[in-house]
């Protein structure tokens, strides 16, 4: 029953890392072209799914939303009122809501796709999360310059109520802080998604390694799987909230 030749590490890494092959059951592996990796394919799937969801399933003409429209509208209104307007103010918040909705639904879609068999988690790839965080960074820099002008952007980096000599240290630190915040945003989403999946695969791998003796691990894996669903929503929310907060801090710097 036990399988001593089984390499648990290889098994886990095979499931969480990017590849140029899409393995489908009962079929030969689907070779992907060099410009399209498995995670990139998942990004396209998620984007296509979101387009279908919001173009065809979201009925704006409904006076009283029901069904799918009602579900999606609850999320959109929550993002608009509780995240965008709360962090950026009424005017900017409403303007920026599409960006935060895109962040939320795209990340949520990618996270949840990782929990469906056959699909892979694109957000467990640091390149994907870094690209998403770079969008936030570009709004923190160029959006703030567009809104407040270049001098306004520089002023946002100078903390108030600090003696001038200390500013020599604090201003470069504040500039680096922009990048550190973005880096933290990248790592937070990437690490949370990767860690959860590694735990699930490690527990399931025990069954192959040890046979029936490790059957309780399946129950534990199921428990982690359910927790992962919560983590998917939580991480999408945290990413959106922190993006809104960081952009809001640059748009409306504290005095």
């Amino acid at each position, binding site marked *: 029953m036990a399988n001593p030749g089984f390499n648990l590490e290889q098994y886990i890494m095979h499931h969480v890392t990017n590849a140029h092959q899409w393995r489908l059951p009962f079929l030969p592996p689907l070779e992907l072209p060099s410009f399209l990796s498995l995670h990139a394919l998942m990004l396209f799937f998620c984007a296509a799914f979101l387009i279908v969801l919001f173009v065809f399933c979201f009925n704006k003409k409904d006076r009283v939303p029901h069904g799918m429209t009602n579900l999606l509208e609850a999320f959109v209104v929550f993002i608009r009122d509780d995240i965008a307007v*709360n962090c950026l103010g009424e005017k900017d918040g409403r303007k920026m809501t599409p960006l935060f909705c895109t962040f939320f639904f795209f990340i949520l879609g990618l996270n949840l796709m990782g929990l469906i068999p056959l699909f892979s988690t694109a957000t467990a790839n640091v390149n994907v999360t870094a690209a998403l965080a770079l969008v936030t960074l570009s709004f923190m820099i160029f959006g703030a310059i567009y809104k407040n002008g270049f001098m306004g952007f520089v002023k946002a980096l100078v903390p108030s109520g600090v003696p001038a000599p200390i500013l020599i240290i604090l201003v470069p*630190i504040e500039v680096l802080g922009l990048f*550190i915040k973005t880096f*933290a*945003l990248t790592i937070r989403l990437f690490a949370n998604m990767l860690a959860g999946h590694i735990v699930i695969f490690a527990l399931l791998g025990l069954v192959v390694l040890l046979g029936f003796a490790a059957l309780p691990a399946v129950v534990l894996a199921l428990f982690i799987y359910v927790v992962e669903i919560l983590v998917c929503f939580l991480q999408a929310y*945290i990413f959106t909230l922190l993006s809104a*907060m960081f952009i809001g801090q640059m748009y409306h710097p504290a005095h």
Partner: protein
Amino acid sequence: MTPKIDKSNFQHVSIGLNVATGMFVFSYLGFLADKKWGGQAWTLVGILLGLVYSAYEIWKLIRQLNDQDKKT
């Protein structure tokens, strides 16, 4: 109706990882500088700057929360 929470100052959600990332980034920059120019001094400077950054982030958060308290 429950009062609406102002999420614009939700910085404490991110403070932990911000501090950790700050320490990592500054220390790593110091490590890279040492690799290029030799010695060990730059790593120490990096760690020190990481500590300064962490203290600064916490100070900013405390100041923000104090301001919020004064308003309410």
